[in-house]
């Protein structure tokens, strides 16, 4: 009998069709409303930052692959996502060399030295951002960076104002403006509605874990409510904290990085709550105006430990019983 050759491979023979590239592309799609809003507001400089950041991150990834003689992973979309998030967190006036250095640190120090995708213990973008933030403080001082922009709304960076002047400063902003992105901040981190819609999309599609995002927001809200309740004059209301600074982009795009966040239910909740609470602690009594970057980095470290809290496998034999 004429016997054709068949594909022989072990079970299972079906796959649900998901892929790493799809996952990262959808995260990029979900970020686009906020990015496009930022470009629309700040114009060509913001477009330049986004383009430079994305392309540099991809170039660094390519270079890292070549240097380390590993297969090219540029097509999986992760480098582009890292670059895009870096641009979203940066002010529109960020110098080109900061973008180059920041994305280099993100890709090399944040990701590739740990073995690339999946091995990074921290969010790569946050590693890059934290290093340039500490090294060149003035660049990320949004009040100084955006001083030449006037769009007819309150251009003072909300978190700095609240930190310096107490909760009275919060009354200078109205909810409407904060939700619609009429506030100072990073290119893609101010358009609250866009970020929320993107986040809801990602949560529904399962590209991020809703437990982390929601518990992060709950952590921010609860901690801010506690501070506000204790001293309403000094500390701004919890709602103010939810829609200013990096809170929303942190909840939906930064805390939810696959590799550096837990996968079990209780650890995800603890991780989100912890990072949220720490964010408000840094904002309220720490040195920095915004605490999202460092709070998430700290809880990235805690991730392996938190993920030890796990249900026992069915049929697990306990030797100590």
């Amino acid at each position, binding site marked *: 009998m004429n016997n054709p050759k068949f594909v022989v491979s072990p079970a299972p023979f079906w796959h649900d069709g998901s892929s790493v590239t799809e996952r990262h592309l959808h995260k990029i799609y979900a970020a686009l409303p906020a990015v496009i809003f930022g470009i629309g507001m700040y114009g060509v400089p913001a477009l330049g930052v986004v383009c430079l950041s994305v392309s540099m991150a991809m170039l660094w990834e390519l270079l890292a692959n070549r240097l380390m003689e590993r297969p090219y992973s540029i097509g999986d979309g992760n480098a582009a996502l890292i670059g895009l998030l870096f641009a979203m967190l940066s002010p529109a006036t960020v110098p080109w060399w900061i973008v180059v250095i920041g994305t280099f640190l993100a890709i090399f120090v944040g990701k590739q030295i740990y073995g690339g995708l999946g091995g990074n213990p921290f969010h790569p973008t946050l590693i890059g951002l934290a290093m340039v933030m500490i090294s060149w403080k003035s660049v990320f001082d949004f009040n100084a960076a955006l001083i030449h922009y006037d769009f007819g709304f309150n251009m003072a960076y909300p978190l700095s104002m609240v930190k310096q002047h107490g909760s009275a400063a919060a009354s200078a902003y109205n909810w409407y403006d904060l939700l619609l992105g009429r506030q100072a901040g990073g290119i893609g981190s101010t358009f609250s509605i866009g970020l929320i819609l993107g986040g809801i999309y990602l949560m529904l599609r399962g590209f991020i874990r809703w437990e982390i995002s929601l518990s992060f927001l709950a952590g921010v809200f609860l901690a801010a409510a506690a501070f506000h309740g204790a001293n309403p004059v000094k500390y701004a209301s919890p709602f103010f904290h939810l829609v200013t600074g990096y809170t929303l982009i942190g909840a939906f795009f930064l805390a939810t990085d696959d590799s550096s966040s837990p996968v*079990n239910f209780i650890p995800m909740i603890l991780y989100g709550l912890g990072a949220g609470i720490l964010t408000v602690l840094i904002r309220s009594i720490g040195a920095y105006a915004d605490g999202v970057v460092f709070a998430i980095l700290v809880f990235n470290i805690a991730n392996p430990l938190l993920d030890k809290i796990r249900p026992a496998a069915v049929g697990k034999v306990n030797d100590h019983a």
Partner: protein
Amino acid sequence: MLKKSFLGFLKPWITYAPPSKKPIVPKELPLPGRLTFIIDTPYTTTTNALLKPSAPVKAFEKMRVYEEDAAYAIASAGGKIVEVKSFLGPFGRKQTLVTISTDPAAALDETFAQAAAESSAAILTDHLELLPGNPRFHRLKNPQKPISTVLISAADGDLMLNTQAQVINNRLDAVQEGIHRLRDLTGIEDIRIAVPKDFIHGYGHIGATMHFVDTVYPAALPNRMVQQVMGITIPAGKTPEDLGILPISVEAVAALADSFSSGCPACKKILTVVAPDGSRHIASVVIGTPIGDVLAAFDIPVSEGDRLISGGPMTGTPLFSLDQPVTPDMDGLLVQAGSEIPSYTDTPCINCGDCVRVCPMRIQVNMLIRFLEARQYQEAADRYDLLSCIDCGLCTFVCVSRIPISQYIALGKHELALAHSAEEVHE
């Protein structure tokens, strides 16, 4: 092939194929010109082999390769031996492949009929070990693991299959008769039958305690079924037999009744044949028939690069040739078009946790895979529950990185078993 739902935060909720509402008459395939049988004995030398080319074979003759080796196959039809050769089974297991050319006029072997008249429990292992449905009755004879409960599975373990459903829905009398036979022969009183929740028959008196199993995959895999029916969790690395439970398919029970009523071992296997377009057919095939004949009977074309699967899409085993025979444990025959075959990649685990959430055994697959990739099998078993795995394949089904997780797990279990048996020999 099933795809991820749009609302990806939901766990995949894969239900078993519901049985057809109308009774289906299985398509009877004619006796082919050649039959092939796999005997679980390594074919090492021809000198004292009992099976020689061109020797005649009686219908229903018990074929063994060597006198001293107990493993056998029952010739589904009489004829002449064409070829005896060695065959590599799963995990490189050395077996013997016997091909016979059939002759409808061949003499009938009477040993089963004589044994049936005596009606002792030995007949189960001596003649009925390889009934359709692969009952493997030798499990009853292990003195270290006495069996106290027989659990008849009337639910198909894998997706797409309707083989057990076909038997329980259409052959209730044979099943009832088989249960009585089984009770008489083994003396085991506690016989239970597990049927799918959507089983629509009147119950009648079937002679066994009726239990219902869930219709969401993998509820009907043996370990999960034992848990639902008996309320017992099988400890990691143990089998139902270790706990005195003998899972057996309902098809084998019906075949047991058929064997006694007809006076010769039943040898017609009910087979769910699934075409690449997903259409399903039920066939009744003589064990040993080449699968090429089965596919030809349903006009299912196959071409280079397709995949042939014995069993279901989640737990089946691949076939590599159209000449491979229908075996007693083959519940399904799936053809997957080459364009439908998902590719695996060497992308590392990105820790998305989908596998952890989908695992019915609550295994930390994301950690387990890291140990398995590093070949630390003992660590994987001790710390991340390698042996709790029931091989349902769901983790691999949902893996975003497309890692062949199930393959790593199978390899890990195999290596671990090898290491342990080597230790025992050493002691």
